């Protein structure tokens, strides 16, 4: 026996073992698995090629319409149709149709579909978002996912763990987005390659679940296999409210061995911006003041949550989006959309001149609902700013938190809330 990091403990148990060390190859039982309208069709094809007829555990499947819905063209309509038919054929209970859906990672957390302690894989790289609940959550290829459907299990190499200790508390307008940008700036886009990033420290207690989802969401931008927040009272409250169970929750051991430990002083952070073309090219937002933008996008599985929209509306209420700028806001899920409508957030945004879309991944990956044209510049609350990520390969994307995004939409150039009149 040895002391275990959270991901070591979770993978060991899922493999029916007491221990696991980095490098071990384990076959783990998969508690939940996810596919979307753009990845499920590939998995379905592979599933058939494998000769599989029935999914091993229909109750473990989650199928979400989120990328190109409402269907943006005939091809995406047929993708969605393939997934819909597969869900019916395999009697998948957790199938989410457009209008009752949302961006899969937000939806999974908000509906309590994944619980602390579970092993969760998804055919989408940002599946690591659910690590905020204390699950081991990671993205896999569509082929791997087909194997999970057929067998209910998957092998993993146990990752090493990087520990990120959060000290103190954030001061507005700094958010958890800035925390993860800071981490990325320190370790780089490959600094966490095939590692688990485990968050720790007294600063966690002050971060609500949505802020934790943002943190873990971008773990993959460091190349990490997973991002994890050990479950605590915030987690317990979330589970009590949203559903799910604490039965499988585990904590890391105090003597666990970490490949690296990084400390972030939350009170010393300032709003940050990742500049083209890497999430790790991070600079203080104040140094980028004056950068002209064509579009501001607020949404995504990184920052499309209700507190994010609240932040944006607080800045935009009573103000107008600058001439020459398009502001697109995409609530992460239908529930976020509805809550934002009830709170009056949507009317504040629309009055300011925002185009509010239905929940989708569209704009973030340059799919639809806000694609950038050639030479255009956007500031977005999303997670990736690689060349061409949101549209034309000559377009440029800056990444920031929702408060900076809203202030930028009003000013027309990269700005901080304090810059606004």
């Amino acid at each position, binding site marked *: *026996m*040895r*002391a*275990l990091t959270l991901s070591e403990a979770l993978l060991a148990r899922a493999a029916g073992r007491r221990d696991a060390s980095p490098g071990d190859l384990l076959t783990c039982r998969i508690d939940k698995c996810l596919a979307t309208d753009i990845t499920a069709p590939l998995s379905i094809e592979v599933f058939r090629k494998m000769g599989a007829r029935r999914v091993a555990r229909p109750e473990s499947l989650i199928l979400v319409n989120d990328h190109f819905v409402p269907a943006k063209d005939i091809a995406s309509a047929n993708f969605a149709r393939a997934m819909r038919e597969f869900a019916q054929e395999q009697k998948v209970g957790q199938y989410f149709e457009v209008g009752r859906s949302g961006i899969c990672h937000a939806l999974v957390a908000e509906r309590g579909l994944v619980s*602390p302690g579970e092993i969760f894989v998804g055919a989408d790289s940002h599946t690591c978002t659910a690590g905020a609940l*204390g699950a081991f959550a990671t993205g896999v290829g569509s082929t791997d996912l087909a194997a999970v459907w057929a067998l209910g299990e998957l092998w993993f190499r146990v990752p090493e763990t990087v520990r990120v200790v959060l000290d103190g508390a954030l001061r507005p307008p700094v958010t958890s987005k800035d925390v993860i940008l800071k981490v990325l700036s320190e370790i780089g886009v490959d600094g966490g390659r095939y590692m688990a990033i485990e968050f720790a420290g007294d600063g966690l207690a002050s971060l609500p679940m949505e802020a934790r989802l943002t943190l873990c969401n971008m773990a993959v931008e460091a190349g990490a296999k997973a991002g994890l927040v050990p*479950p*605590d*009272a915030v*987690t*317990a409250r979330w589970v009590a409210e949203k559903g799910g169970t*604490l*039965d*499988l*929750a*585990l*904590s890391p*051991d*105090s*003597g*666990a061995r970490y490949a690296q430990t990084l400390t972030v002083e939350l009170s010393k952070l300032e709003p940050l911006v990742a500049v083209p073309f890497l999430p790790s090219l991070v600079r203080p937002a104040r140094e980028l003041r004056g950068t002209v933008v064509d579009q501001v996008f607020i949404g995504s599985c990184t920052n499309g949550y209700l507190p994010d929209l609240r932040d944006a509306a607080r800045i935009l209420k009573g103000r107008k989006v600058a001439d020459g700028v398009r502001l697109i806001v995409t609530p992460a899920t239908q529930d976020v959309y509805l809550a934002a409508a009830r709170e009056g957030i949507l009317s504040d945004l629309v009055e300011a001149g925002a185009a509010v879309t239905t929940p989708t991944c569209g704009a973030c990956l340059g799919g639809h609902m806000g694609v950038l044209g050639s030479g255009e510049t956007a500031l977005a609350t999303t997670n990736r700013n690689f060349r061409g990520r949101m549209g034309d390969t000559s377009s440029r994307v800056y990444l920031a938190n929702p408060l900076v995004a809203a202030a930028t939409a009003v000013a027309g150039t990269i700005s901080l809330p304090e810059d606004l009149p």
Partner: protein
Amino acid sequence: MPRIALLPGDGIGPEVTAEVVKVLEALRSRGIPLEWEVFGSSADTYLTTGSALPEDVFQRLSAYDAIFAGAFGDPRIPDSAHAREILLGLRFRLDLYVNLRPVRLLCEEHTPLRNRGLGDVEFLILRENTEGPYVGAGGGFKTGTPDEVATDISLATRRGVERILRFAFAAAASKPRRRLAMADKHNALRHTSGLWFRLFKALKEEYPEVDARHYFADNLACQMVLDPTQFEVIVTDNLFGDLLSDLGAALAGGLGLAPSANLNPETGKALFEPVHGSAPDLAGRESANPSAALLSAALMLDHLRCADWGSRLREAVRACLRAGRTTRDLGGVLSTSAAGDAVVRELLYGADSP
């Protein structure tokens, strides 16, 4: 090799006892010689044979160096006759006259007292365990009629009182402040408490190094709440000890964290049990807090002289509680089993472990 009898008992008893077994296994993996045997359900034994502690079982149990009991209380036996038979039976028949109830605050937020921190609530209660009104001497007359009479006779023997007092003086003498508080009610209970008070005064002469003070039991209860820092060792009789030890447990976070030992220092016989009950409503839900059981096991390791593993286990329990790696009742999110695993790993591989 020390031999331990495990009586998991009822309700959550088996769940918390399973976590104790993990600790014993971990120690054995570290080369600590230990042997244990798990006994079956005493409730089942009671329901099938009419006795929870048949003679052969008692004989077997009395051969062990230590007995660990999980918790007793089964909905099938509403009056808990089996629990009384086994616990009181072992206490009386093995003459386990010292009931040792350490009170120690492990996390500031667990105490209901305002402005009290670690170290402020830390003392040892020694409760006489074989006498007082719990010996079953008494009776009823005209039961169920308006003239009904009921008595329980409180018993105090010179031998019984003197031995627990001597144990208490010796315990206090080994503490840093050498402070002993003795609680009785000799102002009202002139015979039994009178005997306690007379023997206490006499022994004070024999232990001049001990700062021994007398309290009336009611005042002692007040003082425990008003200023728990004044106590180091408290000794009292069975009835007052019953009440005061639960008050002490409450000051340190409740019965869910309270361990206990029942000892006969002369014969070396001993029974260890968490103070909490069997909580049948929690049973099978993996939500019971194993801390009290593990802290009781730590007392058992002290008793069995397993080097300093008793202290290490206490520190491991404390480290896990302070890190929030515990069950939901104390603000954690872990199941009983995960909380037990956390303690075992802390014990063997914790940041502060050797």
